[in-house]
């Protein structure tokens, strides 16, 4: 690998493209348009947001550029502390629930299922369809007058006065529903590479099914679990739409708090500060993941 890379760059330095000298190396400037777009419309906005997070609001909407950490100090208020804790709770719940629901599915698909390609496509399709529609569909299903809901109440399976919509329960259901594919896919990718004869060998040698699972299967799917958890946990820290549609007044999460500052409260610097906190938490997680996975790979070699 290293030899190949160095000989490539040596060739590049000579700038020679000859017959048999490898394929064409497309010029680096091809990356420029995309990089310019990212710089102007992604990095610049994020930077301005960082500047805004320490700016001062004057009057109703005026902003004075300054280095004012008050926006972050406000966040120490227990009121906001509760919002952040609730957000972490939602992210942990979503991660663990999708893992528990999704793992058996990924396991079944990887080990036993026959029409694998089709079944996998069926997992991906909901993920590609509108998040908004998938979320609001629960407004119909969780409505107390939805036929299935009504039937379950009338035969006494569900309590008569059960109200799910516009509570945190509805938010939790929406979260599991929307994020499930993001958990199943990396789990499947990890399980698909499993050599099932290892599990059989462990069982032949006297391990119980559970013990074989714990000692053989589980260690091999840890990277998949880590990847799936990251894919679910990170966006959940900024989740905005599900609580807005399915939740009530009491289900405010970090994403909603950010949104409120821009939609109703008109306190942009404070909203930017909350967003900075979310980004910081996210960065810590990604770095921790990179270390975990990087360590695994080195260990594997």
């Amino acid at each position, binding site marked *: 690998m290293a030899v190949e890379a160095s000989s490539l760059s040596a060739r590049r330095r000579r700038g020679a493209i000859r017959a048999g000298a490898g394929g064409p190396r497309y010029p680096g400037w091809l990356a420029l348009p*995309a990089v310019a777009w*990212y710089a102007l419309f992604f990095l610049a906005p994020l930077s301005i947001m960082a500047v805004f997070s320490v700016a001062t609001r004057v009057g109703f909407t005026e902003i004075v550029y300054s280095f004012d950490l008050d926006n972050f100090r406000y966040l120490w208020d227990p009121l906001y502390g509760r919002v952040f804790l609730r957000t972490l709770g939602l992210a942990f719940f979503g991660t663990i629930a999708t893992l528990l629901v999704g793992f058996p599915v990924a396991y079944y698909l990887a080990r036993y299922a026959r029409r694998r390609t089709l079944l996998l496509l069926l997992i991906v399709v909901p993920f590609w369809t509108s998040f908004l529609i998938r979320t609001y569909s629960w*407004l119909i299903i969780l409505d107390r007058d939805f036929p299935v809901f009504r039937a379950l109440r009338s035969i006494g399976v569900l309590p008569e006065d059960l109200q799910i919509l516009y509570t945190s329960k509805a938010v939790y259901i929406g979260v599991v529903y929307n994020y499930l594919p993001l958990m199943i896919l990396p789990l499947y990718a990890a399980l698909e590479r499993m050599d099932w004869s290892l599990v059989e060998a462990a069982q032949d040698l006297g391990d119980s099914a559970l013990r074989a699972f714990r000692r053989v299967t589980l260690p091999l799917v840890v990277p998949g679990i880590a990847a799936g958890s990251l894919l679910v946990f990170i966006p959940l820290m900024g989740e905005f739409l599900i609580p807005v549609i399915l939740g009530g007044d009491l289900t405010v999460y970090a994403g909603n708090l950010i*949104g409120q500052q*821009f939609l109703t409260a008109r306190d942009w610097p404070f909203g930017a500060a909350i967003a900075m906190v979310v980004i910081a938490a996210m960065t810590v997680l990604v770095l921790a993941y990179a270390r975990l996975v990087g360590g695994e790979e080195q260990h594997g070699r």
Partner: protein
Amino acid sequence: MAGKRALGAWTALVYLFLYAPIVVVIVYAFNGGRQVLNWGGFSTKWFGAALDDPTITEPFTNSLLVAAGNAVIACVLGTALALALPRMRPWLRLPLDALVYMTLVTPEIVFGISALIFFVQAGNWLGLGSILGLKTILIAHVVFNASVVALIVRARFVGMGQTLEEASYDLGAGRVATFRQVTLPALAPAVLAGGLLAFTFSFDDFITSFFVSGAGSTTLPLRIFSSLRFGVSPIINAAAVMILAVTLAAVVLAYLVLRRSEQGRRRATPVPGL
């Protein structure tokens, strides 16, 4: 194998869980009654009503325009990036790689508000006033969709190896000719699939559009969202089914394009198993 059967049953339940809500929206779009949950017989009248309602057809057209423009720009930027990245020196490639992934993992609410701040400030500095509208929605969508295209095209580009391009060089073709006659045709399905997925991402997008839209630049998801305040209505279900139909068609097309080209490639391989 009781365990296997239990797993199978659980998997079936999860598929039901994944599809029931989508099916419910579709079924209730064909409800002839005025109230969503009072079944008034099968009818397609709400689709007619939706297509007659300019507050739905205009956003629908806006969504199609933004998604199409976004797909074209994302394809150009993403494909060029995908060609340049794999053969770049690591000190350049790694940060650019990280940037591509960053555009995809940044929570949309964070990107949405930062884009809002940016466009408002840019409008002020340039003396243009408010520039929020379909153009800003399009610009913001391209940011993450260029990355989607770049990842899909790069996977194909790396996967095809260099043998074909080398052969083309050996036979005396130049850089441009090789690109046009060998590389681009091999990458075309990935570019097309990436473009279709970029189209659906943009067509479906709510959060980013929500923050960078201006007066008179409503997209269909924004229109649906604003009416949800008054609860679900049959006409909104019909509009939702229109969105589902467009995106599903694009996704299935993308899947078929990718799968077909892969099968064709396998069949065309001169050495079996290569």
